[in-house]
């Protein structure tokens, strides 16, 4: 198709003979863009086959409803009205939104502080510390979560052993009153190192002469960190914010892994993703699970869009 058009253009330019330059340039551009398409092709195929196609299929599924006793019937958008009025789904969304609101600032502050400190250090210790802080990210999320499950254990966990010395009862960090903090600790531990590396890399990209100029102007180290370094790496901060936002709204792995040791605190509708998983694979309701997944997708999309919109505006004012 593209080939035929190109030949067409070539022949038309040669017969008419006016503005030959532009015609040739157009041909070259087309040829170049064709070569460009070839480069994009492998990605496009995988992207279409493994992302777009499953998405379309899931959307198709979400338009039907299946009852155990009735079989599959076309339901239109009623699965979505059900989802957005389903207390289980809404409770889960509310949990992840609250979780994101608390977790992301904590994570950002921890990783930013670590990166700034490490950037300021020049000893051999800093390289070692960097590796150690990054290490939790190298541990698979499930294994990390299981490990924390043992650390939290009220029978043989170290917290309880320390409490035993004082004859006290350590709080069980996965009971309904503490599960929020207990999970936040696991996620921060897991991801802060990764974000720290991103921020650290951005810091390394800053030209040292900027610091020199600031110092000549009389800025202290703290002032350089907060007034020079932080503004200059704001794009990296934005990046990890978006990552953290998407990741948190899709919260799944850690609570799913800790579910078995949570004494029932982590229910099958704890987060929207766990709810979708339970609906599909435990309750045989792939249709409703698809609708929940799409509804979650809508929530994530809105959250990210609102967020990017807000930050972009602020950037243009500055």
């Amino acid at each position, binding site marked *: 198709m593209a080939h035929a058009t190109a030949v067409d253009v070539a022949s038309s330019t040669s017969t008419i003979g006016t503005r030959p330059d532009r015609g040739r340039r157009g041909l070259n551009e087309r040829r170049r863009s064709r070569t460009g398409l070839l480069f994009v092709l492998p990605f496009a195929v*995988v*992207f279409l086959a*493994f*992302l777009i196609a*499953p998405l379309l299929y899931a959307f198709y599924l979400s338009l039907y409803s299946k*009852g*155990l*006793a*009735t*079989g599959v019937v076309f339901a239109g958008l009623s699965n979505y009205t*059900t989802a957005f009025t389903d207390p289980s789904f809404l409770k889960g969304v509310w949990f992840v939104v609250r979780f994101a609101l608390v977790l992301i600032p904590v994570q950002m502050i921890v990783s930013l502080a670590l990166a700034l400190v490490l950037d300021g250090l020049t000893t051999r210790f800093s390289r070692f510390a960097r590796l150690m802080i990054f290490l939790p990210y190298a541990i698979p999320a499930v294994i990390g979560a299981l490990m924390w499950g*043992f650390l939290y*254990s*009220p*029978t*043989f966990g170290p917290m309880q052993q320390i409490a035993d010395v004082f004859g006290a009862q350590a709080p069980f960090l996965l*009971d*309904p*009153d503490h599960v929020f903090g207990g999970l936040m600790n696991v996620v921060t531990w897991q991801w802060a190192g990764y974000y720290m590396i991103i921020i650290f890399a951005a810091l390394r990209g800053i030209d040292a002469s900027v610091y020199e100029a600031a110092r000549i102007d009389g800025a202290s180290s703290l002032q350089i960190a907060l007034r020079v370094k932080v503004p200059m790496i704001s*794009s990296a901060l*934005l*990046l990890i914010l*978006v*990552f953290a936002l*998407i990741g948190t709204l899709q919260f799944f792995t850690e609570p799913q892994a800790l579910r*078995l*040791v*949570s*004494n*029932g*605190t982590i*229910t*099958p509708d704890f987060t929207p993703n766990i709810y979708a998983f*339970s609906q599909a*694979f*435990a*309750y*045989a309701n*792939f249709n409703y699970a698809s609708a929940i997944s799409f509804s979650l997708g809508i929530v994530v999309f809105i959250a990210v869009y609102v967020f990017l919109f807000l930050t972009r505006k602020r950037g243009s004012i500055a």
Partner: protein
Amino acid sequence: MRKSILAGVSGIALALALSACATSANNSGGGGSAPSAEESGTSPKLTDCTNKMMNDAPQVSVWGWYPNMATVVDNFNKAHTDVQVCWNNVGQGADEYTKVQTAISAKKGLPDVVMLEADHLSSYAIQDALVDLVPYGANDIKANFSEGAWKDVSQGSKVFAVPVDGGPMALIYRTDVFKKYGITTPPTTWTEFAADAAKVKAAGGPVFGDLGSNVPAAFEALQIQKGAVPFGYDITDPQALTVKLNDQASKDVLNYWADLANKNLVGKVDQFTTDYISGVVGGKYATYTSAAWAPGYLTGAGVGKGKSEGVWAVAPLPQWDTAAPVSVNWGGSTFAVTTQATDKKLAAEVAKGIYADPASLADGWQKQVIFPLSKSVLGSTEFAENKTDFFSGQQANKEVYLPAENAYKGVVYAPITTYYYAQLQAELAKINSGKTTGDQAADELQANIVKYAQSQGFKVTQ
């Protein structure tokens, strides 16, 4: 900046898509039955079997998780020249059910014969995943089982599985704790149970039992013991479902345990966890309300050795009314033939024959892996007179488990077991955290299950 976000996001998406793909590939591979679904011949050659074949006979794929399954499969294969079993263990209980449910939804990937607990049979039967075994001679073996055991696998005139083992419930207790706190005879009623619990607690002893939220099946059995009939269902009228989860008996049992939990007379730890087992070993629980398979499970988990050696005994389950004792069951498994089976007749032969030969049954009960339901074992003196090692030589079968099994009447399970258990578990967790009363939990559960059942298209009678 924008570009890097896009790249990052699509990179994540791709990774997710790939991992999702890998997972599903795993599932169908693990079954070892994908080839059989594609081939139309009568003797598909299966790959991925855990066991070795004894001859070239046609193969039938089986999923099962009995700890001595390897021996059982070999016994079966040695004795058969007309069929060979290709066995895989794809997980125990919920792990397997997730795979079974996925394979049912995908309409391929199920093995020919699958191990299922009796309470899950109607959930799969209603999805047309299980074969009615009556045309394949199920009634020929009916006489081998007790009435209750047979009722658990039947729906009206249809039979969806062959029972293998059961779980008559009893009260396992620690003799050392009982002795230390002056309890001379184990409680015979739930009133005595609560009184003993208070007595031990007042003397500074451990909690008496445990209200684990993750064993809803056991809790349902305790409610049934008080007279609750949670569900009415018959697959011959598949859309009619009776739900009665907030009757007085159900509420009484919930309130009883909520009261014990609020007074800290019982633990609130989920069972089958490392925490719970270490508590059991360490003497943190005076009793364990459990089924006949418990000694084998506990032994495997390391209980009954070292510190907790020789301190265990078993007594009949406490009753609400000693004049009218009720026997209940927790767990126990069956073999069912799936509608995806290539050769259903052959698969039915396997379902009826596997774990039914004397050698396998003896291996199972002697290792305490199963409490067999076959009358050939239940009626034997060897089984009755057996002195259980775990209970320091107590004749547990004769004294406790055999009478319990013989008095078991069977239960009608709903076709929404997984959902019901998840909701009951959530209510039990709420009770444990003191956030609800037994009455509220029962009412909420009833409303919740009725709403779900209606959304699934059932005509619900309350």
